[in-house]
């Protein structure tokens, strides 16, 4: 479904010189997979996440989505693509404060061209087990619940891909495990998930781990069941 082909991403270093964040990375992810991209900080995994999420453009290389090169889309086309095809989950949740769970979940629909949006937010919250929390604001929810609201937001537009960037980074151990079981559940029901993490224990919950070191894929293997 997604194919990164020889992706190179260089940044100018603030004091001069160049950061080689990604150095000729190729990766193929099929529909229905649950892949962890694991690596220490500075390994290039966040850059990879940004490129997969069409938030950043590679210096060279191609990013194919169902065979189409999406790295050359215009800024507005990419925005629309993100809206319709990708759901994002972040380490710091990024929920709007003083805004109910339902309104937070419905945020992507604000930028959608769809007209059949009634009930989607509620349905997404049901999928993450928060049907009874729809009128709660983030400050009234636990960290784990907030992250589940964020997942519902990522799922609301029924995307092809769920991209999670260190989703357990701000959660305690128990909430992190709960979150992983939510991911496994979603994946069992067909959602394609790519999770970026530095936490090797969390990565074990995925079905496949791609390790990234100094901008290159160091290993790529299935997780033993």
């Amino acid at each position, binding site marked *: 479904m997604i194919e990164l082909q020889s992706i190179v991403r260089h940044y100018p270093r603030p004091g001069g010189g160049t950061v080689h964040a990604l150095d000729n990375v190729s990766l193929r992810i099929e529909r229905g997979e649950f892949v962890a991209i694991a690596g220490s900080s500075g390994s290039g995994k966040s850059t990879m996440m*940004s490129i997969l*999420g069409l*938030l*950043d453009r590679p210096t060279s290389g191609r990013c194919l989505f169902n065979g189409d090169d999406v790295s050359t889309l215009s*800024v*507005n086309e990419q*925005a*629309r693509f*993100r*809206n*319709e095809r990708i759901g*994002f989950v*972040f380490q*710091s949740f*990024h929920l*709007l*404060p*003083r*805004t109910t769970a339902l309104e937070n979940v419905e*945020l*992507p629909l*604000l*930028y*959608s*061209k769809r007209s059949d949006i009634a009930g989607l937010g509620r349905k997404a919250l049901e999928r993450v087990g928060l049907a009874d929390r729809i009128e709660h604001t983030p400050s009234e929810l636990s960290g784990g619940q907030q992250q589940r609201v964020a997942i519902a*937001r990522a799922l609301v537009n029924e995307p092809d891909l769920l991209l999670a960037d260190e989703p357990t980074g701000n959660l305690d151990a128990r909430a992190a495990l709960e979150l992983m079981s939510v991911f496994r559940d979603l994946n069992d029901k067909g959602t394609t998930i790519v999770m970026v993490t530095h936490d090797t224990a969390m990565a074990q919950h995925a079905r496949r781990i791609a390790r990234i070191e100094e901008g290159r894929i160091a290993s790529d293997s299935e997780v033993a069941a």
Partner: protein
Amino acid sequence: MNTSRLIHHSIRTISRYKLRSAFIMLGGLVGAAALTLVVALGEGGQRKLLATERQLFGATSIIIMAGGTQIMGGPGAYSARLTMDDIEALAAAIPAIEIWDPQQAMPGASIRHAGNTATARILGESERAPQVWQRSVSRGAMFDAAAVRTSARVAVIGENTARELFGATNPIDGEILIGNVPFRVIGVLERFGTDIHGMDRDAEVVVPVSTLMRRVMNVDTISMAKLLVREPSQVAAASDEVKRVLRERHAIARGRPDDFKLITAVFVQKMMTRVQRTLSLYLPLAAGIIMLVAAIVAASLMLSSVAERIGEIGLRRAVGARMTDVQVQFLVETVATLFAGGIVGVAAGSAIAQLLANRFHLGPVISARSVVLGIVVTIVTGVLAGVVPARRAAKLDPVEALR
């Protein structure tokens, strides 16, 4: 992308930042109130000014003021020599003069009636004052020529003076004391309000000029006179004549300055134009500066809002907001917040303007122009204040913003 959905969402966001929104609204409120207030009052004031000017200085009037150096300074030129004989001589010598009224005045005299005291300006005039000054009595009668001839102690008083001295009772035939001289009230002057000098013309007492000169002030001069010529076209020639005759009668040597001053409609019009220009330029300018301050306050608060909501902006971009959507959101937030304040401000400004106008008898001053101007300027201010924060928000790199 559904624009009305986005606008609706942006407006709802305003209520989530209550304190900041309140400050922006306050800026819009004060700015719009000030603008509406000065425009409404300025227009009302101008209308009143023009009406008063027409009443005081019609196109056919020539005003002679005693004392050459005084410019509309009112009475007080006691050293000057302008007499009833002077004016009678002018009327006899210049056939263009149709009617005239002499005037002597005492500013701020104390008047008493049955234990009540009022302060009023005492004007000594002739029986022709109603025609010459276009102000008659609303109750009772004006004194006649015989009263002037015999220096009768009769008075016509303003409404405010009547109220202060007589309360609710009928002042006609009541006795008042000006200084220690008793007068009988025979009429009440028509309401006038405040004149262009800010003087309350309803706190005034008009008595025969001869009575005021001889029995109260003990002077043999008058402070001014108003002459009306038959046609506006005669004003220029007639005032030249007035000048010639008066200089001759006062034996002013060639090259010496006049010991009187002439004011004609032309002179007054020039002055009015100047006043009008000041009112219509500086008042809105002052309000504009207040609006500018409101815009700066709103812009800086919105900039801090952008800085505080960087994560939110990044998230919106990630879930599909285009740069334009982010820009529209912040612009709508700024405009709508200022607008909300502005509407209240326009209402408050109009209300205050009307209250002040009532106090100064300016009549109704709230105009469609002042209301529309207040609203339009608020919206323009909102757009101006919102553009920079909105562009900054839109230009944020989503990857950076999400960090």
